[in-house]
């Protein structure tokens, strides 16, 4: 495809052509209307003037006779820019007036005629003018002609016609040029976008579409596509992270599992020894299954599939339920777990997933606050709270454990990330990731805040579900 062909094929250019045609048609119509009306107006004016003149002159003739009429006509004929006058005898001899010659028979028929004529005072006999005249037959056979020259009308008509031609030409030229310009500009931007898309398709996900900053529809398109790319890149990064993490965090227990089985075979221990080896194998694989399930759950929450099953449920009831489930465990660990929730906090979402997310947070709180509580001797508190805050619903778990340094708070939400000092605490490192994924699924977020001392993990959900959040 040639560059010009490509240009002519653009939507912008085609639109220009359509507009151009419409506009040109409109201009032609407008000018035509103007010309037609001017002509009509002129004719009307001429008719009125001539009618009045004839009426006046006929009156003069009726009251004062032919002599008086001739005098008046003579006088009027001499005025500059005057109408056309001619008074003749019944035989056609001219008595007065400024008309030199007329075609045969004009004076014979009374009424309106458009005719050519020559003025009496004109020397150039080749020049003929056009006029609209009315002939009136007076009593006694005298004939009176009054008329107006039509040159002025025709000149104006020509001017309008010329203007029409020129403006049409200008409209077409400017329109085509504009069309080319706009099409080329749009084409250039679209080409730039296409190039970027190609690089992205080539595997470089960090590419972004150019935004001109004009805020027009192409910019909006580019911005939206960029947002989409951002999301895709994040998902891809997540996926890559997951595969890296799976490689690391699943291979480690798998290796342990394999080693233990191998060792049991090699050593050939007593029956009790085999039993112990097999039991630890099952335990290890259960741990693996658990990790695997959690990973699947996160992936599922992140892909947004669970959005289909969202219904209204009571977040306060979830807080109480989870609190009740974990309260004995907390007590056993020397912690005091309390639930602070109003009678009812309705929210739209997936009750099961939100319960699980909250359970993970409580589980974490118990795990990390426990050693602290043992050290202090005094029961340290964990508070599970549900509350409605405007159009959002918060589910919060606050503990008095070691907390998470502010610099690490963004990192711990990622899959498998466990801070160095928490390596000794059992867990998959997926609890916070899952809570964050669930919050995101609902169009909300997981916030980690300081509790001075301790950690305050907050699941913020839009009250109306993900749709409500926009």
């Amino acid at each position: 495809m040639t560059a010009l062909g490509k240009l002519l094929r653009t939507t912008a250019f085609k639109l220009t052509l359509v507009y151009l045609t419409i506009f040109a048609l409109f201009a032609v119509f407008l000018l035509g209307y103007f010309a037609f009306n001017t002509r009509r107006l002129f004719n009307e004016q001429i008719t009125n003037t001539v009618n009045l003149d004839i009426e006046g002159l006929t009156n003069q003739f009726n009251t004062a006779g032919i002599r008086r009429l001739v005098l008046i006509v003579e006088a009027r004929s001499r005025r500059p820019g005057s109408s056309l006058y001619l008074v003749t005898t019944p035989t056609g001899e001219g008595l007065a007036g400024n008309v030199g010659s007329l075609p045969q028979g004009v004076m014979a028929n009374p009424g309106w005629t458009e005719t050519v004529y020559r003025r009496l005072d004109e020397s150039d006999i080749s020049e003929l003018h056009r006029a609209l005249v009315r002939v009136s037959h007076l009593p006694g056979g005298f004939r009176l002609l009054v008329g107006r020259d039509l040159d002025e009308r025709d000149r104006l008509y020509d001017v309008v016609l010329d203007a029409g031609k020129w403006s049409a030409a200008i409209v077409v030229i400017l329109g085509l040029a504009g069309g080319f310009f706009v099409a080329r500009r749009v084409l250039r931007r679209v080409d730039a976008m296409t190039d970027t898309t190609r690089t992205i398709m080539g595997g470089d996900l960090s590419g972004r579409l150019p935004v001109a900053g004009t805020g027009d529809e192409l910019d909006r398109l580019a911005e939206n596509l960029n947002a989409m790319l951002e999301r895709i890149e994040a998902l891809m990064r997540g996926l890559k992270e997951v595969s890296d993490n799976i490689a690391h965090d699943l291979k480690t227990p798998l290796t342990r599992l394999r080693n233990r089985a191998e060792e049991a075979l090699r050593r050939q221990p007593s029956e009790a020894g085999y039993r112990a080896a097999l039991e630890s194998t099952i335990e290890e694989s259960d741990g693996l299954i658990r990790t695997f399930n959690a990973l699947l759950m996160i992936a599922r929450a992140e892909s947004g599939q669970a959005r289909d099953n969202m219904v209204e449920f009571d977040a306060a009831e979830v807080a109480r339920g989870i609190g009740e489930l974990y309260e004995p465990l907390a007590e056993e660990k020397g912690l005091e777990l309390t639930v602070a929730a109003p009678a009812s906090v309705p929210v739209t979402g997936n009750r099961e997933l939100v319960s699980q997310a909250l359970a993970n947070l409580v589980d974490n709180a118990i795990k990390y606050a426990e050693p602290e509580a043992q050290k202090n001797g005094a029961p340290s508190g964990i508070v599970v709270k549900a509350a409605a805050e405007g159009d959002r619903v918060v589910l919060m778990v606050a503990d008095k454990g070691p907390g998470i340094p502010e610099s690490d708070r963004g990192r711990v939400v990622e899959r498998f990330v466990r801070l160095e000092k928490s390596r000794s605490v059992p867990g998959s490192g997926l609890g916070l990731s899952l809570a964050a994924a669930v919050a995101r699924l609902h169009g909300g977020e997981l916030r980690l805040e300081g509790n001075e001392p301790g950690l305050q993990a907050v699941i913020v959900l839009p009250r109306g579900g993900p749709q409500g959040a926009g």
Partner: protein
Amino acid sequence: MRLLIIEDDRDAADYIVRAFREVGHVADQAADGEDGLAMALDGDYDVLIVDRMLPKRDGLSVIGILRDKGIETPVLILSALGQVDDRVKGLRAGGDDYLPKPYSFSELLARVEVLARRRGGRNEDTVYRVADLELDRLSHQVKRGTEEIVLQPREFRLLEYLMKHAGQVVTRTMLLENVWDYHFDPQTNVIDVHISRLRSKIDKGFAQPLLHTVRGAGYMIRDGAR
């Protein structure tokens, strides 16, 4: 107990069948949906174990046809899809229980036994009794001998479920699902603490313990003297 296992993975099916036979049950197997449906229609089984994804005919459709024909044999669905909505879909299609893969045999056995027993029906009893432990479902009273035991509402439901299935192994997941209505895996074994609390209320101070831990499987309430 007669079981039919409809599962296309031969290794998995063989393993289940062998394991069920070892604990004294009769187990048949079918390798695809059509065979499974035909066998379920012909034979008299106590429980059907149906894999969700089967060749020739999908597991859920097998269950649908059985239910349409008025066959109410309890069905346990096995599935690699372990998410909440899949479970709901399975139960809605007429399944009675749902177990995601991979599962432990003890979990499967416990659930199948509960399903088979349910057929006999103990649901209508208003008072459950195990040895000298008595639970009144209407008045919510629990007594051990003559001594009244005060339980929290959740403890009551926990004991009620255990006693409803007295003599049967009840797994932690079953308790979590049926007593708490949660279908996820709490990373820590929270159920154990609830059980030990309950145990301290019903068994502490009595010569004969009733609430037993079944190693590697779960819990069971049982009259130890028998």
